[in-house]
């Protein structure tokens, strides 16, 4: 079953190459390779669920020399998120690009991005992580630039600079660790890390670089422009998956590599920044004039929840409560991944239908697109954190942990964040009830609408009512 791991990385990578060679066939080649990828991920998930964590060393070298891949609960869940979102985005993308040249550019880059993500989730040593991180950043930048307009090029260039700076910080940290401990394997590094200058400097550099890539407040300045000017399928992937990669790495580093070296103030800092992100991001989303900008700022806010969760995780002593917070964070990350990709795809439908995405002029459009409006509502329920979404369960446990720890300020922040989220989501949904001319035959563009709808249903119902297995899965493996 270990082969599934290699397969998970190889299918999109091969797909990217083949799609580059046969640009005219790229769309179905892309979808095909992602279907295969999803099958492989499904097998890997089933295997990990039953057998627990597994390791594979490429090329038969011994661990520490060869490229090691690790599949544990966290990694397979992120792979599953990526596989589902990637599949939905790909189905959507087959009908999105009207210019065949755009499509021919999109598919190889997009498949490369998925391959990089999969590699990143499975990588077991710090240098391979760097390679996948760089690959991910570059393909994301290129995809952002596909919009072709001046704003998208500007945003992509800024994104490129930020990405390179972030990777540089990360790489510097890796270099320090290698000098100090002579290994790059995460487990072996983790065994040697202690409260010493080398570990602490590496922790700061690597975390700093990743926070920049993850756009944690106040390092989010590049995100709204990049995410809101990219083509819709790209925005969905960037907001749902790419920023999650950075968060995933911070989570791994803080809980597995550096738990001894993380100072108390580190948790405090993340908690404060996360809270600011929630409040500032939600407020900016509420003030946004355009739908895509609203969705982008909402991502800034939602990342804040994840980092608040991480801060709570660090201060919660190991045990049942700790596992509960861990599960809550992962479930919120998964829910956000599904919900935000659903939102961006739905916005894409609205934008193509109306020719714009100005929120104040959406009356007729949202009434003629009932399925898409419904998708926005489902995604919105998950973003606000209302039941029965997965985010509601996550938020319940985060609030519970905050109350137990006496962190009333965090309770307040999460509460205000939810209310602001409700305000910005319903500001959009209110337009579904305008008095604009009523079309008794609504538009039903199934192939464009159902990916968003499916993702929204998974975020709200699937992860809400059917996610009880996630907690023991994560708890058992951690």
């Amino acid at each position, binding site marked *: 079953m270990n082969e599934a791991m290699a397969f998970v990385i190889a299918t999109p990578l091969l797909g990217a190459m083949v799609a580059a060679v046969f640009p005219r066939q790229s769309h179905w080649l892309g979808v095909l390779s992602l279907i295969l990828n999803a099958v492989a991920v499904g097998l890997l998930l089933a295997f990990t669920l039953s057998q627990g964590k597994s390791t594979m060393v490429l090329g038969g070298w011994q661990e520490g020399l060869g490229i090691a891949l690790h599949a544990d609960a966290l990694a397979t869940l992120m792979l599953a998120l990526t596989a589902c979102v990637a599949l939905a985005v790909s189905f959507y993308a087959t009908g999105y690009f009207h210019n065949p040249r755009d499509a021919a550019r999109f598919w190889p880059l997009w498949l490369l991005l998925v391959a990089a993500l999969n590699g990143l989730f499975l990588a077991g040593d710090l240098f391979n992580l760097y390679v996948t991180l760089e690959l991910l950043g570059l393909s994301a930048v290129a995809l952002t630039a596909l919009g072709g307009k001046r704003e998208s090029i500007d945003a992509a260039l800024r994104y490129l600079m930020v990405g390179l700076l972030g990777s540089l910080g990360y790489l510097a940290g890796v270099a320090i660790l290698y000098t100090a401990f002579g290994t790059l394997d995460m487990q072996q590094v983790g065994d040697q890390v202690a409260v010493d200058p080398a570990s602490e400097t590496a922790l700061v550099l690597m975390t700093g670089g990743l926070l920049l890539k993850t756009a944690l407040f106040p390092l989010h300045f590049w995100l709204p422009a990049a995410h809101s000017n990219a083509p819709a399928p790209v925005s969905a992937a960037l907001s749902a998956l790419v920023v999650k990669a950075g968060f995933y790495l911070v989570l791994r580093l803080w809980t597995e590599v550096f738990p001894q070296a993380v100072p108390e103030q580190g948790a405090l800092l993340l908690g404060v920044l996360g809270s600011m992100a929630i409040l500032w991001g939600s407020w900016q989303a509420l003030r946004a004039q355009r739908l895509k900008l609203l969705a982008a700022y909402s991502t800034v806010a939602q990342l804040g929840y994840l980092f608040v969760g991480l801060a709570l995780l660090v201060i919660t002593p190991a045990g049942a409560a700790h596992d509960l917070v861990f599960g809550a964070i992962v479930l919120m990350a998964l829910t956000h991944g599904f919900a935000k990709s659903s939102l961006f795809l739905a916005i894409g439908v609205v934008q193509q239908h109306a020719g714009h995405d100005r929120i104040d002029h959406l009356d007729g459009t949202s009434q003629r697109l009932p399925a898409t409006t419904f998708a926005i509502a489902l995604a919105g329920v998950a973003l606000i954190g209302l039941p029965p979404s997965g985010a509601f369960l996550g938020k319940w446990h985060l609030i519970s942990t905050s109350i137990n720890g006496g962190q009333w300020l965090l309770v307040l922040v999460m509460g205000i964040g939810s209310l602001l989220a409700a305000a910005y989501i319903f500001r959009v949904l209110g337009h579904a009830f305008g*008095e604009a001319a009523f079309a008794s035959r609504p538009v039903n563009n199934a192939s464009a609408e159902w990916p968003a709808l499916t993702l929204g249903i998974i975020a709200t119902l699937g992860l809400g009512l059917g996610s009880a297995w996630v907690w023991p899965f994560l708890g058992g493996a951690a």
Partner: protein
Amino acid sequence: MNLSNTLLLMILGSSLLPGLAIFFLHEHSYRLRTTLNMIGAVLKLVLVAVLTWGVLHEQTFETRWLIAPGLELVLHADALSVLFVSLSTLLWLVTTVYAIAYLENSPHRSRFFGFFSLCVTSTVGLALAGNLFTFVLFYELLTLSTYPLVAHKGSAEANRGARTYLAYTMGGGLVLLIGAVWLQNLAGPVEFVEGGVLSQLPADSHPQLTLIFLLLMIGLGVKAAIVPLHGWLPRAMVAPAPVSALLHAVAVVKAGAFGIVRIVYDVYGIEFAADLDLLMPLGIAAAVTIIYGSVLALTQDNLKKRLAYSTVSQVSYIALGTAIFGPLGTIGGVAHLVHQGVMKITLFFAAGNYAETLGIHKVSEMHGVGRRMPLNTLAFTIGALGMIGIPPIAGFVSKWYLGTGAMEAGLAVWVIPVLIASSALNAAYFLPILYRAWFAPARSDWPDERIPSGRQETHPGLLWPPIITASLALAVGLFAAAPFSPLEWAELIAEREYVR
């Protein structure tokens, strides 16, 4: 899978599935939509009858589903849930008939009936919730499913009203959530058990329990429209008449009141709540709301707004009954849960008929309307007299029990004056309407006569629902001592709640 496990799911599904199916229907498939609606409503009624029989014979109905560690979806039926479920099911059926006639040929009907069914599903879910987590879940779902109904007309005013509604209920939901999470931290998963579950907790947690009680009451008080959290209710009156009827009689306002009853009796336990001195503040808040709502109702010329403030006042009778320690107060409060629903839905149906048939929206336009629409006005009269508390209509029964309960509990000093003042105020804002409708000379031109006067005063689908509910209001008062009457159920509930 035996019946006792699946019955509760079937009761939920009987409105959920038709509701979901209706969303996909074409706007013009009138027949299919009506059939789905009616099948769901009648089926639910049958299932609830089975449930009622079972609960009376002490059968347990329970469904559990773990959805996260410590968070379990629990559906459970006890006497109190049966009372609320049968109220919502019965009134849903009647309101569906009314709504089908009311919305004839208007746009967005599939959307309307879809959310209408979801709204009832959430209400029934609330009634059947077996623990606090499930209650919170359905409480939020109720907010979500009613928002589209309030915004339904799509006018700027409707959108504003819906936004206000949302702001209040989301805020309330959040406070309730925080209270619930906090309580679960202290006491573990909070199941609803007759007699309450919290009295076992150590004494040093009592200050926290008091604070949590405050949070829960604020969260529920928003929907129950307890002053000063009632601001959304008059603004939400922009909704179509069937929605207002349902919101005021069964769904939203009642959900808040039902929640208060649940928390006091089945979480804290009435005796423990009395020990913590939580009942007095609740009673005072209810009394203030009763008087304040009535005073505001006096000043409204808009008929629906007058009814809205009357709801603010009347629903707090339930909270007042809860706050009166002793079986009689409990009986009065719980019975009023049903009585107010039946009477208020009659008033809203009738008011909607005036607006739909003659274009009458204001009290000052109602001269002689009794001669033009005698049956409708008769139904309105029964509802109004019941609200004032005139025997033998339902409202009298609840007021009687509240009064005697207060005397028994030694609270007569302030409860009886509140009841008298409120009845006087009710009379002051209802009697002039009745006088004008029956005795003032009829006007020759109505503001906007849409249905010409013929053999029947208005569309039969609009006329029959208020007649049926008015008869119900009369019957539950007249036959209050008959088996299966709301009063009998309230007595059964009171019997099971007092443990000591």
